[in-house]
């Protein structure tokens, strides 16, 4: 394997952030028209729109960094499962509203601390994107932290569903804090964020909200990982098949 250049690393780094936003946004958008009540339907879509806007900025920048003329749609619609680099948690089916809430809350806390740090990036474009994104993250965190408390300290049924969701999501949590060569190179260059620091803050924030919600955060029995290497769960293939099908059937056209 050829040596990792800083340009490669920046491309991969940006692409990963974009993939996470796209795939999580996709899962959230599946609620559109099917939310637990009309107001929340509208609220969920606001978050999905934020994530979609975020992935578009990041894909465009990734394409620019790569320098091969790929645009946002080339990157979103013309890569296969093995080339997608999102965390496994993001691609899991939307489940019930408890699972959606927990997954979203975990991602919100990660995003909040990650993008807050990324505002200090020496890469001006990433820093500018982060400054915009972090405002959305604060709102998403606020919205979903409230839901965690409501459902976690609501009825017997909601408490049960939340505990099930937490158990179901737990094996995907630690993948979000793994550091590899790309991360290290970006951290060393003052561009990226140290995920060990994000992890400490993530745990503190989650535990604080869980305490109010009277919920427990279990240590996972084992960890699943591999999203960043393109080693996904079986869920992603179906998601991409649905998402990409029009583009793949009729390539190279304007829509």
């Amino acid at each position, binding site marked *: 394997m050829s040596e990792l250049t800083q340009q490669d690393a920046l491309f991969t780094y940006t692409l990963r952030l974009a993939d996470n936003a796209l795939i999580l946004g996709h899962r959230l958008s599946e609620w559109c028209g099917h939310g637990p*009540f009309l*107001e929340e339907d*509208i*609220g969920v879509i606001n978050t999905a729109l934020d994530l979609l806007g975020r992935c578009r900025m990041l894909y465009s920048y990734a394409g620019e960094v790569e320098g091969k003329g790929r645009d946002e749609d080339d990157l979103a619609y013309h890569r296969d499962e093995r080339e997608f680099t999102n965390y496994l948690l993001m691609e899991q089916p939307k489940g019930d509203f408890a699972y959606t809430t927990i997954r979203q809350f975990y991602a919100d806390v990660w995003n909040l601390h990650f993008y807050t740090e990324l505002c200090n990036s020496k890469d001006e474009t990433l820093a500018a994107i982060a400054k915009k994104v972090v405002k959305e993250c604060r709102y998403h965190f*606020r919205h979903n932290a*409230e839901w965690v408390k409501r459902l976690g300290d609501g009825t017997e049924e909601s408490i049960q569903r939340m505990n099930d969701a937490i158990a179901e999501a737990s094996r995907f949590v630690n993948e979000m804090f793994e550091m590899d060569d790309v991360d290290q190179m970006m951290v060393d260059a003052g561009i990226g964020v140290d995920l060990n620091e994000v992890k400490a803050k993530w745990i503190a924030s989650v535990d604080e909200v869980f305490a109010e919600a009277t919920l427990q955060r279990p240590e996972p029995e084992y960890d699943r990982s591999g999203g960043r290497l393109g080693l996904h769960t079986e869920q992603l293939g179906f998601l991409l098949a649905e998402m990409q099908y029009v583009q793949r059937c009729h390539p190279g056209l304007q829509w």
Partner: protein
Amino acid sequence: MVDQYLPLWEVFVRSKRGMDHKHCGSVHAADAEQALQYARDVYTRRSEGNSIWVVEAKHIVASQPDDQEAFFEPADDKVYRHATFYDVPADVKHM
């Protein structure tokens, strides 16, 4: 299964600094924080505001159409409260 519905809240949005909060509709929400968030999600999707008030609908006290005469008509004959009631010569300035 008993169907559950959330209470009604009235929403007031200030479109920009210096303006009044204006009533713009309602949302259903379980609590005040949620009502505030939904008011934001529903009524400010196109940057229509920079400040929101919500109040649970049952707490609003309103005058009734039957109050019309007793409440508002007594004010109609107090024309001397309006500047136009007074004749001031045209050559008097800054009045």
